[in-house]
């Protein structure tokens, strides 16, 4: 039985048996939940298909959030990528950005999404994985398996720290999502379990301290765009790990540090709309506009 209390446990166990983290997690979860591996795999496959649909739904030109404060970001980015041959970031990354924006936009307009790990950070994992599937031709089975690796990382973060913005700030939502995605990407690219852990550590380090300061308390500004920074950090952390650049601080210690930083953040910066961007002059104006004060 896996405890999901440390990344090290996952790495040690997977390397001892010479299997991928995803295989370890699938076997373990099937045992714990008393269902077949096939059933769990198929459930994850459905989640992946919902993610693909959220990308499509959120990329529509007339996509608009509930409050009207955000909308159409995914469409604009996708147009730009097509018109400018990938823009600055190149085709893979720019299209991934467009997808993350689309899913986060889909969420903001009350569309159907998969929380991963939360609704506010739901664009990061699909942005990474759907892009490898649709633009790089990765095997669907490998993609879906990598979601078990991502899920296991999220379980460890939830156990040692938090995945709720109200408790740990945005680092707990987009930071956790980036760490999850980074580990999945490394596995997909053929990296070792310990490289997955390195990517996870670097992703968390690079989002450390990020506050949750939503304008008008809505999952729109800056949440939609923060999914992009999470996605870019996931890709770059995965590439660094695959290049052989190790994490100097182990993943578990990074997660513990994230909890300590989250605890130290004042309540005003943890999903209360009491500080940061939410209380800037423009942030306040937008809030008044939405609520008609």
């Amino acid at each position, binding site marked *: 039985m896996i405890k999901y209390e440390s990344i090290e446990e996952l790495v040690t166990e997977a390397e001892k048996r010479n299997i991928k983290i995803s295989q370890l997690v699938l076997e373990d979860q099937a045992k714990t939940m008393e269902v077949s591996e096939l059933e769990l795999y198929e459930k*994850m496959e459905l989640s992946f298909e919902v993610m693909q649909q959220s990308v499509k739904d959120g990329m529509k030109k007339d996509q608009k959030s509930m409050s009207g404060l955000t909308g159409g970001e995914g469409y604009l980015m996708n147009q730009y990528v097509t018109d400018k041959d990938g823009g600055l970031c190149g085709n893979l990354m720019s299209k991934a950005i467009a997808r993350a924006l689309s899913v986060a936009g889909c*969420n903001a307009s*009350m569309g159907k999404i998969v*929380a991963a790990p939360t*609704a506010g950070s739901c664009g990061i994992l699909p942005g990474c994985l759907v892009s490898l599937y649709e633009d790089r031709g990765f095997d669907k089975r490998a993609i879906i398996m990598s979601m078990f690796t*991502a899920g296991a990382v999220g379980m460890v973060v*939830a*156990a040692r720290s938090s995945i709720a913005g109200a408790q740990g700030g945005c680092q707990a939502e987009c930071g956790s999502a980036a760490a999850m995605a980074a580990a999945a990407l490394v596995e997909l690219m053929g990296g070792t379990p310990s490289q997955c852990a390195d990517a996870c550590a670097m992703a968390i380090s690079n989002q450390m301290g990020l506050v949750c300061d939503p304008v008008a308390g809505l999952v729109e500004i800056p949440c939609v765009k923060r999914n992009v920074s999470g996605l870019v950090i996931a890709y770059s952390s995965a590439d660094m790990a695959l290049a052989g650049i190790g994490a100097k601080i182990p993943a578990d210690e990074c997660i513990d540090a994230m909890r300590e930083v989250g605890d130290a953040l004042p309540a005003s910066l943890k999903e*209360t709309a009491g500080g940061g961007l939410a209380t800037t002059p423009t942030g306040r104006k937008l809030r008044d506009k939405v609520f008609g004060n």
Partner: protein
Amino acid sequence: MNVFDIIGPVMIGPSSSHTAGAVRLGRVVNKLIDDRKLKRVEITLSGSFAQTYKGHGTDRALMAGIMGYKSYSPEIRDALKIADKRGIEYSFNKENIKGAHPNTARIHYYLEDGSEGVMQGASIGGGNILVKQINGMDVDFNGENNTILVMHEDKPGVIASVTNMMHWEHAELNISNFRLSRQEKGGEAIMTIEIDNAPPEELVEEIRGIEHVLNAILIRRV
């Protein structure tokens, strides 16, 4: 916790606590109403729910849950219109419910047959909920286990009748938590029984058949 608590739930946005959790709170009321006809609901929102309910669609999510939709039903978006069409009256008001969790809703429902009831609960993050009160009685369950609520008259022997029946008819059922709450001696009382196993379909009907039991409902684990 399992892997689908992290990669999931599949839900209608924008917020797991303010939308998906709100649907689940509404669904508890849907279970309480069962197949009786709903006439009117008065929904009181407290704390963060009161501040941001419109932008998060919390109002639509609660109504969707009350009407029996799930956290992934696309109908959530049009839940208020659907309620209008079904002739269900609804109102939302804000009140600071003292000592309550920041995301608390109190739902007072009135049925066509003249009966009514109240449920108070909180959305505690990630789509998870905590039901605190039913008809003014403390219950305190989170829906992570299969939960049976038994509304009954406060009479000697009712608890024994229910638990004995559960044991004799379904020996495999194991109670993991039990709580009793009552309005006053001899008045209405409520048992909250959480069980480890998936309960058989007929269990609720069997409990309803026991003397002095007013109603029984099952909230399945999510």
